[in-house]
């Protein structure tokens, strides 16, 4: 039986929300734990770039270290075998962590929508390509099309340019009118002005609104993409395609624990508490709002989970402002219905099990599709095709079962509940 480590407050996810939650949960005498399944802290937005730690993450990790809180990276939460206990898996095996209060800061992932050619090598996510460049992929001189939806498109196009990538197309599906309105709403967020102006100056002129990728092609990897723009269809030669339509919450651990959700987002009260009394949630799983909302929610959750509710309430006004920003994001960049028509019968929808759209035309729900086609039953456990089939067919994502990630069989061998 693995040994059990005990924490007063355990935080899952060391991105902006989790770092903020861990720091604010520390009272001076309690035991706070912080785990993350990535090789380093920072989450997706503050992932180390080519070996360089983001300054805010460096500072946060150093501050936590000073008070004896070590970020434990490379640990994936795979099961909740008993109330108050998480099973975590690392390269070295399984461990059990016991907590009084749990704060879920499990972040978000990109929304991928299928289109012909989206399974070709070198067609990847927008954040996906950026993550690879941050972890050492050399894009100097490479022709890259960036497409999909959301402010990340501009940020990544700018990032790729700074790393000598050649951005040869930048396609945003949202209508120009919505983008203009979003730009105006940004006036209420002065902390975003500099970033917005810098991105606009760098790549703004390349951006084509009302435009989206309809197909990618190539012999063994992406060689061209076709985009639909208000001026008609155009084909562009490229070596990489970065395409994603914003974000969906990574809510699997919350759902496994029994936390209530609405539209996939974990429901929380004023103090970020979920429907399970000792479980809190902060950041993207409660609503896609970006780094400022995430750190604010993390702060509230950390303070509340460590018994300092009055202090937590003093931050609620700030959270409300960033929630409004999140609502603006949501209405501006919602994927348009035409994107449903890109899928042909031959298009693979479930990439793990290679299930085509044709085979998904007869099942009437996600569960039936699973039973008849294995859609959503591969290693990613529906994390990629689940949100896609929700968009395409309106299917709800099915239940969540342990292990949350594929684990070696040895990890299952000692998985009986503990009372230790």
């Amino acid at each position, binding site marked *: 039986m693995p040994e059990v480590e005990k924490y007063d407050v355990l935080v899952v996810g060391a991105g902006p929300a989790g770092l903020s939650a861990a720091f604010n949960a520390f009272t001076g005498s309690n035991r706070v734990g912080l785990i993350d399944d990535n090789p380093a802290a920072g989450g997706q937005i503050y992932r180390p770039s080519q070996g360089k730690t983001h300054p805010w993450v460096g500072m946060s990790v150093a501050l936590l270290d000073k008070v004896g809180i070590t970020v434990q990276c490379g640990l994936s939460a795979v099961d909740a075998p008993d109330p108050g206990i998480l099973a975590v898996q690392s390269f070295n095996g399984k461990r059990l962590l016991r907590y009084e209060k749990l704060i879920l800061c499990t972040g978000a*992932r990109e929304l991928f929508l299928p289109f012909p050619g989206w*399974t070709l090598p*070198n067609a990847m996510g927008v954040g996906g390509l950026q993550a690879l460049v941050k972890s050492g992929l*050399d894009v100097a001189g490479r022709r890259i099309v960036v497409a999909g939806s959301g402010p990340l498109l501009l940020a990544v196009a700018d990032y790729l340019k700074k790393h000598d990538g050649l951005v040869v197309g930048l396609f945003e599906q949202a209508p120009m009118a919505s983008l203009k309105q979003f730009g105006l709403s940004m006036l209420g967020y002065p902390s975003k002005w500099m970033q917005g102006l810098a991105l606009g100056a760098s790549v703004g002129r390349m951006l084509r609104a009302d435009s989206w990728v309809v197909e990618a092609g190539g012999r063994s990897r992406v060689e061209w993409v076709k985009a639909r723009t208000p001026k008609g269809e155009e084909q562009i030669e490229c070596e990489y395609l970065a395409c994603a339509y914003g974000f969906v919450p990574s809510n699997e651990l919350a759902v496994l624990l029994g936390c209530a959700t609405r539209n996939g987002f974990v429901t929380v009260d004023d103090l970020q508490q979920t429907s399970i009394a000792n479980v809190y949630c902060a950041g993207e799983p409660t609503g896609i709002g970006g780094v400022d909302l995430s750190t604010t929610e993390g702060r509230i959750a950390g303070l509340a989970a460590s018994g300092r509710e009055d202090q937590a309430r003093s931050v609620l006004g700030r959270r409300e402002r960033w929630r409004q920003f999140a609502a603006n994001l949501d209405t501006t960049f919602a994927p348009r219905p035409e994107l449903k028509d890109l899928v042909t019968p031959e298009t693979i929808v479930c*990439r793990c099990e290679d299930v085509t759209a044709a085979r998904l035309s007869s099942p009437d729900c996600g569960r039936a599709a699973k039973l008849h086609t294995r859609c959503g039953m591969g290693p990613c456990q529906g994390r990629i095709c689940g949100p896609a089939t929700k968009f395409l067919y309106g299917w709800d994502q099915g239940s969540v079962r342990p292990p949350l990630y*594929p684990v070696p069989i040895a990890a299952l061998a000692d998985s009986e509940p503990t009372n230790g």
Partner: protein
Amino acid sequence: MPDKITVKIDDTTIVVLAGTSVAAAILNSGRAKARRSVIGEARGPLCGMGICYECRASVDGVVHVRSCMVPCADGMVIETDA
């Protein structure tokens, strides 16, 4: 940690900067494919963050490793299409 790291990818030996993920090293070696899908299609990284399992490769004999989640180490043996 040395600044430069040597890894072997299939029959290619390449030098990468410290901190480079296995997935990035595979692409830097000129390959785009990490694995073959159940019907035999070539697949490479999609999400870059350990969610999609498309970038699976064999690392030092361990199969089905999410190559985007593992930093290269000196002398590492990586096999695509494993």
